[in-house]
C-alpha cells in the first residue's frame, strides 16, 4: 500500500530530513513510526501526502508512483488518505458537523448522503451529541476525536496520524489508539507517527524506528 525505496529528502538550505529510507506497508496493516523529534517522522508523512516531494528515491502509494503526479493529480491522491494532526486543525468558524462534512463536500457527496456519513463518523468516535457545537468548546480529547472523525468520514484507504496523542493524557491516548485499531480491523491501512514508546509497546504492532533521518529498526 505504501512503499518507500531509498527515499531521501533534503530541505532547502541543505538540511537532510531523511536519508535512504526503504520500507513497505501492505494493505490492511497497522504500523507505528517512531523516533525522537526531528528524526524525520513528519517528513515521511508529508512525503506520503505529497505535501513534500522526495529529493531522491521513489515512493508509491496504492501501487501508484508519486513522483510523476502533477498538481492536478494531487487532490485525487490525497482523497484516498485520511490525516489526523497533532493539533487537530479543526476550523473554529463552523460547527463540529461542518468540520467533519468538509472532506465530503470537497469530494462532492450530496448533502443527504454526507449528513448520514457525518453522523456515522461521529457515532464511531462517540460524540454524536456534539454535532451542533463549535469545536472550540470541546475538550482536547474530544477535539482530537473530532479530528479523527473528519479523517475517516470519507472512508479513506489509508489513515495517517502525526502525534495524535501528543496533547492527551494516557487514558485518552489509549482511547484514540483503540479507535485506530477499530478502523484497521475494517481494512484501513494505518500509519501512526508517535514518540510515545510505552503506548506503542502496548499496542504490539509493527514499528519503524527512525534515527537522524535513517531507518534503524523495523520490527
Amino acid at each position, binding site marked *: 500500500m505504501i512503499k518507500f525505496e531509498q527515499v531521501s529528502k533534503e530541505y532547502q538550505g541543505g538540511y537532510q530530513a531523511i536519508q535512504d529510507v526503504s520500507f513497505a506497508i501492505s494493505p490492511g496493516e497497522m504500523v507505528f513510526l517512531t523516533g525522537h523529534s526531528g528524526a524525520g517522522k513528519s517528513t515521511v508523512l508529508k512525503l506520503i501526502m505529497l505535501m513534500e516531494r522526495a529529493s531522491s528515491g521513489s515512493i508509491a502509494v496504492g501501487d501508484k508512483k508519486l513522483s510523476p503526479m502533477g498538481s492536478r493529480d494531487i487532490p485525487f491522491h490525497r482523497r484516498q488518505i485520511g490525516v489526523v494532526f497533532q493539533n487537530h486543525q479543526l476550523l473554529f468558524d463552523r460547527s463540529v458537523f461542518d468540520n467533519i462534512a468538509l472532506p465530503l463536500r*470537497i*469530494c462532492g457527496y450530496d448533502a443527504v448522503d454526507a449528513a448520514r456519513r457525518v453522523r456515522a463518523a461521529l457515532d464511531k468516535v462517540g460524540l454524536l451529541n456534539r454535532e451542533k457545537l463549535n469545536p472550540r468548546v470541546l475538550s482536547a480529547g474530544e477535539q482530537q476525536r473530532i479530528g479523527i472523525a473528519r479523517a475517516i468520514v470519507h472512508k479513506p484507504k489509508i489513515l495517517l496520524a502525526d502525534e495524535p496523542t501528543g496533547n492527551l493524557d494516557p487514558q485518552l491516548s489509549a482511547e484514540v489508539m483503540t479507535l485506530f485499531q477499530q478502523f484497521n480491523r475494517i481494512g484501513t491501512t494505518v500509519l501512526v507517527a508517535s514518540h510515545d514508546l510505552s503506548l506503542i509497546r502496548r499496542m504490539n504492532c509493527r514499528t519503524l524506528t527512525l534515527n537522524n533521518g535513517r531507518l534503524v529498526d523495523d520490527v
Partner: protein
Amino acid sequence: MSDLRATRGQPKRGAQQHVLTKQDQRRHWFAHHGEVAKDCLRQWLSAPVSTLMTILVLAVALALPSFLFTSLANITRLTSGWDDENKISLYLHTNLSESQIEGFSQRLLLRPDLIAIDLIDAEQGLLEFKQYSGFSDLLGSLQQNPLPAVIAVLARDTSEQSLEVLQQQLSALPQVEQAVLDLQWIKRLNAMLLVLERAIIALSLLLAFAVLLIIGNTIRLNVESRRDEILVAKLMGATNAWVRRPFLYTGIFYGVTAAISAWLIIEMSLVVMQTPVLHLTLLYQSNFKLIGLGAFGGLLLLVVGLSLGLLAALISVNKFLNQLEPK
C-alpha cells in the same frame, strides 16, 4: 474519476469509498457554485460598509476613464460636422453694389482652384445674425445694414500650405476686405483631440491597474483570513479550482458592482449636464445632443469590470496556491 480508480482492487470488506459518477460530479459542480455564490453574498452582507467603500473606490476608478471617453466622443461628434476644413470666407467691401458682387462671385466660379462658392449677401447675413445672436432689437434700430456680403469658397487643395497661399491671393483681390481661413482651428482641435485621446488611454490603463491592485489586495486579505481553511481543504484533496471558486466569485462581484456603479455615476452626471449643454447648443444654433455610454459602452464597462475582478482574484489566489505546491 479518481474515486473510481481508488476503489478498484480494494478488499471487499469494511472501508469502501463512495463511487462518484460523472453525473454526480456535474451536480456537485453546480451545487458548489450555488453554495459559493450564496456564501460570498453572506460575507458581503456581514461587512456592508467596508464592502460598499471598496466598491465606491473601484467605481470612481472605472467611472473616470469612461467619463473622459464619453466626453471625448461627444466633442469628436461635435466637430465631425465641420469637416469642410478647406473653407475660406471672403468679407467683401461694403461699398460694392449688388451687381458688382454678383459679377465677382461669378468670376470666382471660373477659378480652377475653387470647387464651390456660396454667396451670402448682406441682407441674408443680417437676417441670420438677428435670428441667432439675440440682438434683433438693437439691429432693428440701425439705419443701415452694417454687415458686408460674404462669399464662402471651398478650396480644391486642402493642404495647409496651399490654403494659406490661396487665402493670401484672395485677400489681395480689390473686392475683398478680408479673407479668413475659417476652420483652420478645427484641424488644430482635431490634432489636440488625438493627443487627448492618447492621454485618456494612458490614464485608463493606469486606473485599470489601480482597480486590479485594489481588488487583488482585497482578495489577498480574504485569502489570508481563510488560510487555515484552505490549508486543511487542500490536505483533504480539494482541487485548486475548488479553493479558487469563492475568491473568483468575490472578484467578479467587486468588478461587476463597481462597473454598474460607474455606469450610474456617468449617467447621472450626464443628466446633470444635459440642461446646460442644451442651453449652450441652442445659443450656437446646433442640434447637438449629449450622448451617454450607450448599450455598447455600458456592456464594455461591464466586461472590463468583470475581467479585471476575475483577473485580480486569479492572480491573488494563484499566488497563494503556488506556495502550497509540494517542492
